């Protein structure tokens, strides 16, 4: 079943007020899929009746906002970007910039993405020095990322066992990223609506599965801020379901190995 328009409006308003994230109509599926687990554990008949109970109970609001703004995360998520990173983007960046690369992993959540980037570099380009700036809105997920500690369940999820034993060490109930990996990644709090993080210019920016939350004007602003810290010839990764098409024509979409990369069009570089 689908949720009623006024229920959707309620959730969209709540999320926009708390996080500046815009849920346009058409995002009903997102609200439904993210709130379904909450509805289940609350014993509600469906998402619609769960939202009705949320409207009557302000203490449930935080949970709803969190469910809609927290990014699902796993190691080498979607895999394809990491293949392209290894086969195309890093070799290209090395020819332009030498063996010191700067990477920005935006909306990095609890750190699986920046550590996956770090493992890709450590495994395939051992003589490259990389500094990866990983940012997110939530201090809680940043603290987890900094600790580099992941539970058995978390490392089971998408982290190939050979990489697990090369880059992590078991410490009690956790597997901890080794010193080399942790030294490559620095975690900082950052809101994509603010000025971009220092530490650029970046050769590669990962900005995946976050534009989907914004309206077109905000998407354009966020992408322009990304461009302002992108190194000449730098590349941007977006989520598989995201694109700059219809957002801003300063971006060129470059098809690579069944997916796409983005860079500023020539002559329009920052």
């Amino acid at each position, binding site marked *: 079943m689908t949720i009623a328009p006024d229920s959707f409006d309620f959730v969209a308003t709540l999320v926009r007020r708390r996080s500046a994230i815009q849920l346009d109509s058409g995002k009903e599926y997102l609200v439904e899929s993210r709130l379904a687990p909450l509805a289940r554990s609350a014993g509600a008949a469906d998402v619609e009746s769960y939202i009705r109970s949320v409207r009557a109970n302000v203490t449930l609001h935080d949970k709803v906002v969190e469910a809609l703004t927290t990014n699902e995360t796993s190691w080498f998520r979607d895999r394809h970007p990491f293949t392209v990173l290894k086969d195309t983007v890093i070799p290209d960046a090395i020819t332009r910039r030498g063996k010191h690369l700067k990477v920005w992993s935006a909306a990095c959540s609890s750190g699986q993405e920046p550590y996956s980037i770090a493992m890709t570099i450590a495994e395939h380009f051992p003589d490259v020095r990389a500094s990866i700036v990983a940012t997110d809105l939530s201090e809680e997920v940043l603290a987890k990322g900094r600790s580099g500690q992941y539970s058995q369940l978390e490392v089971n999820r998408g982290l190939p*066992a050979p990489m697990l034993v090369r880059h992590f060490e078991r410490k009690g109930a956790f597997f901890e990223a080794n010193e080399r990996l942790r030294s490559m990644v620095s975690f900082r709090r950052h809101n994509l609506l603010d000025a971009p993080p220092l530490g650029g210019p970046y050769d590669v920016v990962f900005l995946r599965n976050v534009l989907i939350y914004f309206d077109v004007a905000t998407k354009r602003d966020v992408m322009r801020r990304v461009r302002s810290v992108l190194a000449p010839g730098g590349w941007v990764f977006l989520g598989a379901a995201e694109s700059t098409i219809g957002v801003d024509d300063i971006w060129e979409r470059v098809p690579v190995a069944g997916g796409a990369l983005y860079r500023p069009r020539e002559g329009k570089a920052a």
Partner: protein
Amino acid sequence: MKALVIDDSRVMRRIVGTILKDVGFEVVEAGDGQEALMRLEQHPDVRLCCIDWNMPVMNGYEFIVAARAKPEYRDITLMMITTEGEQDQIVRALAAGAHEYVIKPFTADVIIDKLDYLGLLDQEVSV
């Protein structure tokens, strides 16, 4: 594609077997490493083995060593599925020739992700 599930626990064979069947595998079973070597002779088209560690007669580690000693099995993907979560054990299994290692408990997604990564999923069921 055919898979061999090697576990002395009937319940685990059923759980792992169900996950594999759901993504299109034909499943054969064995209760220990020795029986598994027999099954491999009967089913030369097995492409994947999911292997428990602790089993009577021949354990999972010994099975991996035995299977890796035979060139005719070199294209078979070996995935340990076990509660043995110590780093040393994982390293040992990989060094002996296992390709992947899943620590129990796990969800179906964990197994499916790993099969996908290893290139063992048909296009239409892969996520």
